[in-house]
């Protein structure tokens, strides 16, 4: 029944001509009103992935209980480096830490992070585009305007990624996303492990994002891909993906802890100077 319906839709798609500009390498997919199979979609696939900001997950954790976000804040002690790949990873990680501090409504930590953002942006040569956002973060922190700070952290990350892409530094732009995702995931695993429930643990079901990061790293230039930390991240992400794919009947406490340990160890590697 489903199949014949699908065939009818494919036929309709073909006759209406919307397969005419199917992109090379696009995944096939099919469309249906009740059932949809992305593997047979006859249209165009948009490959861009918008990675959720940590606060998207944090807001669910808030609804499921009241985590002690203050306990989740980690002091950012970054070793001085001129290594742009590491700086990009640290930038993403620091912005994600900002989201944790916003969740904890900790003004002083938000301000410290705002200043770290300025230092990192200076190291990356992007201070001109980042300074207005960093200043807005510092100003909003004084007022305790948490929604504005959240928006500015999101905007800061977007500005940095856009600027990197304009400068043909797409690999570094991906590193920003990866650093941010790892820090957000470390927070989520920490909160979930402290008060385990299936609903909380389900928030770690993010295989598409992990596959996206692994795929992005594999396409990076050799100078970035072979960077020791990026190489470690690639291996770590494969371990995390295996845990996610293995959680068919839901995540166990152990699998949450394992994902947390891997994320923490990768974050340590990002922070360290080599």
């Amino acid at each position, binding site marked *: 029944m489903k199949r014949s319906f699908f065939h009818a839709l494919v036929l309709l*798609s073909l006759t*209406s*001509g*919307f397969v*005419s*500009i199917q992109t090379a390498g696009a*995944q096939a*997919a099919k*469309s*249906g*009103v*009740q*059932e*949809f*199979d*992305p593997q047979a*979609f*006859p*249209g*165009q*696939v*948009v490959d*861009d*992935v*918008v*990675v*959720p*900001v940590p*606060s*998207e*997950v944090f*807001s*669910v954790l808030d*609804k*499921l209980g009241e985590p002690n976000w203050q306990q989740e804040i980690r002091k950012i002690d970054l070793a001085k480096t001129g290594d742009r790949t590491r700086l990009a990873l640290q930038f993403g990680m620091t912005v994600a830490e900002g989201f944790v501090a916003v969740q904890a409504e900790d003004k002083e930590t938000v301000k410290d992070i705002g200043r770290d953002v300025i230092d990192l942006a200076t190291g990356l040569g992007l201070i001109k585009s980042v300074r207005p956002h960093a200043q807005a973060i510092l100003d909003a922190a004084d007022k305790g305007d948490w*929604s504005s700070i*959240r*928006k500015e952290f*999101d*905007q800061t*990350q*977007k500005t940095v*990624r856009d600027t990197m892409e304009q400068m043909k530094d797409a690999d570094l732009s991906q590193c920003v996303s990866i650093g941010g995702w790892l820090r957000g995931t470390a927070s989520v695993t920490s909160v979930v492990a402290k008060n385990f429930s299936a*609903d909380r643990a*389900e*928030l*770690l*079901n*993010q*295989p*598409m*994002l992990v596959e996206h990061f692994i795929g992005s790293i594999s396409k990076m230039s050799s100078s970035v891909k072979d960077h020791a930390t990026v190489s470690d991240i690639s291996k770590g992400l494969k371990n995390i993906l295996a845990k996610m794919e293995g959680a068919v009947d839901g995540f166990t406490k152990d699998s949450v802890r394992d994902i947390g340990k891997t994320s923490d160890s990768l974050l340590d590697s990002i922070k360290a100077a080599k």
Partner: protein
Amino acid sequence: MITLFKLRTALLAVFLAGAALPALATVDDAHSYSMEAAESFVEQGFIVREEYWNGEVKSAQKLMIKHQMFKGNEYAFWLGTANEDVTFELKIYDEAGKEVTIDGKSSKMYASMRVNPPKTGTYTIVFSLTSKKESGLFWALAYGYR
């Protein structure tokens, strides 16, 4: 003669720059309209993400985007265009291929819809814009959550 030639060249340059500007502006305009669609949602407590998808597409061409959503959040998606007289189609499917779209609405320059994800995971957004007048349409898709 040289002066006339220079004048013609300058006029041509101005014309070409003028012709190029609307094309550059329309992608941004599409995002502006998606943000216009978001306004009433923001009043209801939705937080708008700064990152969004955009591009140019042939009229009636279907597009597919994979997106991560978290059970417990409510999401709203806003599809904007800079082209007039466009009809929108915007649907979201879960991993089993079941449509999860609720409360879809459209107006002249944008469409919106909401999703309460039944599970945390990957969702597929399928959309198209159709125009009887234009073959290429600029679009922007933004989202928010609460």
